[in-house]
């Protein structure tokens, strides 16, 4: 998430000024991460609103005839896998803070894999539905949910992948520095990024639990 367009030819700053900008950069990652959660909340909330709106208006008694439900097996698998992804991101970050980049990268890569499997399953599930998209209000909102879930899973996997990849590159390029401790600016920005990332993953998991309950359990 961190970007910096620092161009050559500009006057140099004192170290104090550099540190000031560095902190602005780190706190931007923090603020940005939280604001992104806000944005995402409003998007998912539109789906939740639609679900309950159609459910309570039950136009023409066609909200959910015969209580059709999307295949539960898929639902449990997908949600389970994204839960694992979220947990891995969370635990990975914890381990990173405690000083183990190794653990973090194992957790993150596993998270990427579970996330991608969940993504694949989510796509496959769409061809195994027992109802047509337009057959009921539930069916429609379910399709909307599936699409948003695909987006969430892609973002989740992408963010996890880019953070580990970044950590690994820093290890390679910044000599003698471990991204978990180093005060090299790149390492500091990296840690802020991981923090924002794991926060977002936890948020996605919680939101995912709500949506899972709405579409598969209720």
């Amino acid at each position, binding site marked *: 998430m961190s970007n910096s367009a620092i161009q050559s030819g500009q006057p140099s700053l004192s170290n104090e000024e550099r540190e000031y900008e560095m902190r602005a950069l780190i706190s931007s990652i923090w603020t940005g991460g939280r604001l992104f959660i806000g944005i995402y909340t409003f998007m998912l909330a539109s789906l939740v609103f639609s679900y309950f709106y159609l459910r309570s208006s039950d*136009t*023409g*008694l*066609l909200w959910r*005839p015969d209580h059709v439900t999307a295949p539960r097996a898929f639902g449990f698998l997908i949600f389970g896998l994204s839960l694992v992804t979220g947990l891995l991101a969370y635990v990975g970050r914890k381990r990173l803070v405690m000083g183990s980049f190794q653990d973090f990268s194992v957790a993150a890569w596993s998270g990427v894999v579970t996330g991608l499997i969940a993504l694949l399953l989510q796509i496959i599930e769409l061809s195994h539905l027992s*109802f*047509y998209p*337009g*057959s*009921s209000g539930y069916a429609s909102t379910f399709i909307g949910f599936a699409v948003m879930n695909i987006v969430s899973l892609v973002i989740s996997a992408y963010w996890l992948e880019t953070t580990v990849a970044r950590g690994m590159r820093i290890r390679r390029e910044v000599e003698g520095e471990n991204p978990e401790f180093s005060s090299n600016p790149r390492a500091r920005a990296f840690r802020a990024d991981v923090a924002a990332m794991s926060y977002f993953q936890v948020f996605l998991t919680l939101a995912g639990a709500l949506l899972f309950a709405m579409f598969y359990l209720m």
Partner: protein
Amino acid sequence: MTNKSTNSTGQVHHLRRMAVVWVIASIIGDILFSIFVAPHVPPGRLTETAAKDQTDFNILFEMALPVLFGVWIYLSYALYFWGDKRNSDVAFSGDAARSNMKTQVSWMVITSVTVLFLAGFGTWALVVDHGSGGGQGPNPAFTPSGSLKAETAALLGKATWSPGSKNILPVQVIGQQWKFTYRYPTFGGFESSQLYLPADTTIAFNVTSLDVIHSFWAYQLGVKADANPQVNDVAFTTTKDPGSFIVRCSELCGIWHGAMYNNGAVLSQSAFENWATTTEAANAANTALLPAFAWTYVPDANGAAGGYYPDGTLTPYSPSEVYGSKQPS
């Protein structure tokens, strides 16, 4: 004069001058408005509802005029007296001018009181006027007494109305691309493309649509209600003297939206009864072919109104199962 304004008495001076002009202008403006404009303000006074809507508008306008005048007078005064050229010798006291507690607090109090008064007044008007002629959905919140009875009777085909009966007259408005038609459940449910209403009668418009959203705007009646497919949008009005009015569609409904209008009239009670009974008789053969009177008419999901699954078997739920019976109000 302007050089005096450097001291604090000068400040009072400016505001007092403006206030005097403002009070006079507002009073004159409001009086002129009330005499010359207010009686002609739309939607006129053809119905009780329209008359009340007009009164509300006029009250709002009489309150708005002083607000407009206040700002305009202040702006003109400021531009005239405080222009750069005119008072080049003025020096200003910096910090004192950054804020002024008294001004700020009184501004907030005045605006808040005005706004709360307006909201209270609007709500009161809405309630006492049974929804002010606006569409209130299938379960209206602010109803004239007897409306539920009349509406239930209409659905069961038992509604009655005759001159002098004081009964509420339910009328159904059906919007479709691009015309309005009207059904009279009290008279056997015949359908007409003319809208006639009896004088001195409370009308319950039941507005629905067969396709997209339209809006039934009976301008001089002070009635506006969206026509939604599958929804019965109810609006009330009470007619007074006979007169004619125009009906327009006021929600964009496609290409010919602009041409979706017709005229209607409030007739004397006997003339209305005469028209209704003759039309009922004349249309009897057609009425028999119409779907039974219901609050909404649902297009056939199997394709008649554009169902999504043309090879019939794919439509999983037969609409006749769902919509066989009339819907409750």
